[in-house]
């Protein structure tokens, strides 16, 4: 009997995951190509912005859905269920943002006048197929312009969590000496912490996907932490380096627990937590030297081998000697 119950529970969880956690919602800096020309960019990180009354700068983000950053579609209002937006400024204070469908697409926008990381969260809470789903799309966006100075830079980049409002958190731990200018790039080892209702998630499966599709999955340790080392993307073009382009990477995890309750008169037997975290990286600044070194090694090896073979052949050449 116990085995049958376990089996039913297993299939129910599998079903819950399969119907609820498939679609990954995430926040992106990249506009759809049809409006790309209309978008203004501001600050050192070239964040997409629109200006309101009195030149109030509003950062905008596009809501996207899909597994791979490069191929994800731009979401539509129907893709979200019972969604709430939370935005926190670098001091941890709540900022009023809005989700809107405009000529720029389905976007999130919020005013930004402080230097440091803005944390943006889209939180969905709904019951479907006997499962309470929490879907969180988180993004951290660095708003910085060198004109505004670099005071308290180390403090302003520190991560903050908001367990009262946000049930699931993926926190990127900061590098030693990280400042307002730090951008991740291939070769960096990045650590993420996962929290559910403020408690570390042990043995959770976390996946990382870079813009061009490099994937890696790891399991969190006893502190709820997991580290990934970025690998250089294939086919990085030189123009991508020259234009200070940045790409999105995605962190994703999903976790299901058997817990029953009632929300809005709807009963559930499981809770499914699903979260994405999007941040930016840029192609390795060592890419120029990668090309130069490769060319140097290639040409050097070809030259050495050619000289080697030439002398080897010359040494083996038997000179004609007249027999006495």
């Amino acid at each position, binding site marked *: 009997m116990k085995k049958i119950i376990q089996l039913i529970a297993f299939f129910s969880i599998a079903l819950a995951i399969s119907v609820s956690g498939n679609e990954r919602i995430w926040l992106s800096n990249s506009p759809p190509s049809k409006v790309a020309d209309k978008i203004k960019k501001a600050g050192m990180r070239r964040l997409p912005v629109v200006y309101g009354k009195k030149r109030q700068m509003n950062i905008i983000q596009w809501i996207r859905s899909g597994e791979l950053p490069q191929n994800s579609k731009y979401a539509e209002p129907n893709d979200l269920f019972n969604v709430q937006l939370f935005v926190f400024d670098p001091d941890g204070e709540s900022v009023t943002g809005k989700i809107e469908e405009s000529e720029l697409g389905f976007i999130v926008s919020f005013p930004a006048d402080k230097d440091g990381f803005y944390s943006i969260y889209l939180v969905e809470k709904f019951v479907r197929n006997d499962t309470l789903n929490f879907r969180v799309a988180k993004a951290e966006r660095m708003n910085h312009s060198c004109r505004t100075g670099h005071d308290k830079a180390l403090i302003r980049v520190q991560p903050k969590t908001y367990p009262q409002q946000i049930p699931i958190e993926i926190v990127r731990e900061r590098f030693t000496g990280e400042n307002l200018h730090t951008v991740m790039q291939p070769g960096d080892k990045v650590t993420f912490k996962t929290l559910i209702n403020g408690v570390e998630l042990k043995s959770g499966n976390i996946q990382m996907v870079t813009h061009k599709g490099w994937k890696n999955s790891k399991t969190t340790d006893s502190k709820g932490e997991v580290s990934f080392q970025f*690998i250089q993307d294939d*086919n*990085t073009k030189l123009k991508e380096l020259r234009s200070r382009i940045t790409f999105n990477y995605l962190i994703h995890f999903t976790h299901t627990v058997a817990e029953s309750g009632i929300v809005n008169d709807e009963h559930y037997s499981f809770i499914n937590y699903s979260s994405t975290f999007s941040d930016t990286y840029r192609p390795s600044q060592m*890419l120029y*030297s*990668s*090309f130069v070194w490769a*060319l140097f090694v290639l040409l050097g*090896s070809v030259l050495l081998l050619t000289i080697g*073979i030439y002398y080897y052949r010359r040494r083996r050449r038997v000179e004609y000697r007249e027999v006495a």
Partner: protein
Amino acid sequence: MNKIKTYLNNADVSRFRFWVQIFTFVLFVYGGYWGITIAQNLPIFACPYDHATGGTCFLISLQHQLHTTWDTLFSVRGFALLTAFGTFLLFFFFLNKAWCGFICPVGTLQDWITKFRKSIGVRFSRYEETTFKYLKVIKYLFLIWLLIVPLAIANSFFGLPHMSHDWFPPFCTICPARVIMPLFTGDVSQLAIDFSSTPALIMTTLGILAAALFIVGSFVKKRFFCLFCPMSALQFLFSKIAFLRLNKYGDKCTKCGNCYRVCDVGIKEIADDVISKNIVKDDCMMCFKCVEACPEDGCLEVAMFKIPILTASENGFFKRYGADEQKEITDDPK
């Protein structure tokens, strides 16, 4: 029927091969530009790092399919590996190792480098017999490497920690085709050393060194890389049961050695072995130069489904080599 047979036996196979190689090179290097994808899991080095390739090498699929846990490998998902392998075998069975001799773009490139060397009058090299014997083992070591490493990345062997993912794909990163083939489409992105981690640094540096060795090696030695090609090793495991055969009737052999002298790879058994009927050795690429150069009637024979399609003949030999008295059988310019 006899007329067709005589026509085929007297045909200039090398010229036919030359045109087939040009056609397939364009197909597998630039085919993607015309939206052509012949297939995945092909038994040739159709390199997927070339974004315009018209097909995909089986070795990259093999490495990806093996990059999985034991549980997954022996579950329903393991069928993906079997499907890939089945596709590879299906293609391979028809043409046997003639995929290497006629279709592989990397083989074609080596043949073109050889033609260039000949045109400028530089003599070629051959390995000594002992050296050849030792070097030919390398391709099997590469094959073992590309089978073991993906599994060792996804699984723990003998309680040891998993290998870093950065070693993946273990053969492609050190394969000269990865660096060289994309260059034909103007893509230099693979001509780079990846500094992002120690394994990536080691592997990409080895890849560049392999490319350098490929260029110089192919210049002085015909089909230099084929001796180290793990695809060739994998093919040989199934070569005996393929439909296209290269047969030798030892009782008709006079051991003149023509076949050995024209062999680009330098397989000595083709001349020495008068016992075996199936004469396809692990390094053979089935270019059929040996059949062309054999002056003994019916000594060497190419057969498909046991039907002879090209047979060595005295007439064919003189037709091919006799017309030009200056043309030496060694294929050496000087």
